[in-house]
Each structure stands twice: as C-alpha cells, then as structure tokens.
C-alpha cells in the first residue's frame, strides 16, 4: 500500500517568508510525527499527534513553528518568518496508534527546506 507522502519534496524560500509543509500519513494511522533533520545530524523530534490533537509538541523550537491536523489525517507544518537556521529536511512519520509505544513509525521521504 501507499506509504507516507510529503509535499513538496523541495522548498526554497527567502528569509522572513512563511512556508507550509504537508504530510499524508498511511491510511488509517492515527499517530503522526514531525521530525527535523539538519545536515549531518539525526532526526530531531518536533511534534506528535494522536488523532487531531497535538499530544506532545515539546520539540517545536519556538513559536514560529506550528502544526495542525484538523481531520486526523493530513498534517501541515507551518513556519513563520523563516530563518536560515530553519534549513533542514523535515520528516513526517505515522504509526497505527493502536499499540502505544511499540508501534513502528513509518517515515516519509521528507521535505528539504532551504532558506536563502
């Protein structure tokens, strides 16, 4: 079946602009995660959704970052007033949400964000 998809695959923007990154999870998965992977680093947790609600947003670096999942499926990560330091690959993952922390997280290919 279809895996996690993310659009766009690449996004180039200018400092100070607003961007939206989209994630389509695997159908039926209730849990959704966003991670950020900077160059030469491992993925870093940003936010976790269970259904429509953000169950853990402790990884969001500041209030310029916001994520929504209004219908419990597609999620959008929103970044306001982008800064050069926001340049990274943004990864989305989903899991069934039925087995708690033993669920396997399935990752999308990521969106590479470049802030000029």
């Amino acid at each position, binding site marked *: 079946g279809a*895996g*996690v998809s993310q659009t766009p695959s690449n996004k180039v923007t200018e400092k100070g602009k607003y961007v939206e990154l989209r994630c389509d999870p695997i159908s039926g998965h209730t*849990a959704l*995660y966003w*991670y950020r992977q900077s160059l*030469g*680093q*491992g*993925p*870093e*947790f940003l936010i*976790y959704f269970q259904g429509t609600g953000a*169950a*853990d947003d*402790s*990884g969001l670096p500041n209030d310029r970052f916001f994520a929504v999942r209004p219908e419990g499926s597609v999620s959008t990560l929103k970044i306001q007033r982008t800064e050069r330091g926001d340049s990274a690959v943004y*990864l989305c*993952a989903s*899991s069934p949400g039925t087995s*708690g*922390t*033993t*669920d*396997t*997280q*399935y*990752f*999308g*290919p*990521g969106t590479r964000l470049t802030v000029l």
Partner: protein
Amino acid sequence: AQSVTQPDIHITVSEGASLELRCNYSYGATPYLFWYVQSPGQGLQLLLKYFSGDTLVQGIKGFEAEFKRSQSSFNLRKPSVHWSDAAEYFCAVGAPWGTYKYIFGTGTRLKVLA
C-alpha cells in the same frame, strides 16, 4: 539527559566483509531500541527493533542487533555486506511509556567497496 551515541561517522567496508555499527545510549531505564536505514532520496526504513526478551534480534536484509544492558549498547551487525547496503544508518531509542518520540543518533554513513 537522554542521548544516543553513534561513535563512527563514516565506515568503509569491502563487499562481502562483515559489518558492525556501534550504538550506545543514555537513558533512565531500558528504552525501546531501533535501527533505521536511510538511502538517498528515500525515507527512513526500519531494520529491526528491540522491546524486551531475547537480546539478539533479527531484522530485514540480513541484519541483526544485540542488546547489551551492561554496556548500554545496541550494535548492528551483518555477516556479509552487499554493495546495496551503502546508506546511512541511524540508531534510535524510544520510551517504553508515555511519549512516543524517538531520540536518534547522528548516524553512521556506510560505504561499500566493490
């Protein structure tokens, strides 16, 4: 603080040789442990995971990993590497309760020589 250490940034092996990628973690209790592989342009793919029980776990693509509680390690091994194994490998830990977030290591990039 919770952390995952992958001490080898780059590893180069010849095709057919054995492989061991190291992973050490710092955690308040025994976490859940994972190895993921990331190929260029591909998403992270789960190789194997450890929750409890037998400390030697088998994964996909001929990989295995051994959990050693006394060393806080979860090293990944493969007896004979194939050229297609060239990729970046990430070790990750997850809490056995509460939050579902993973903490990843910085990764080990594997190069395979023909």
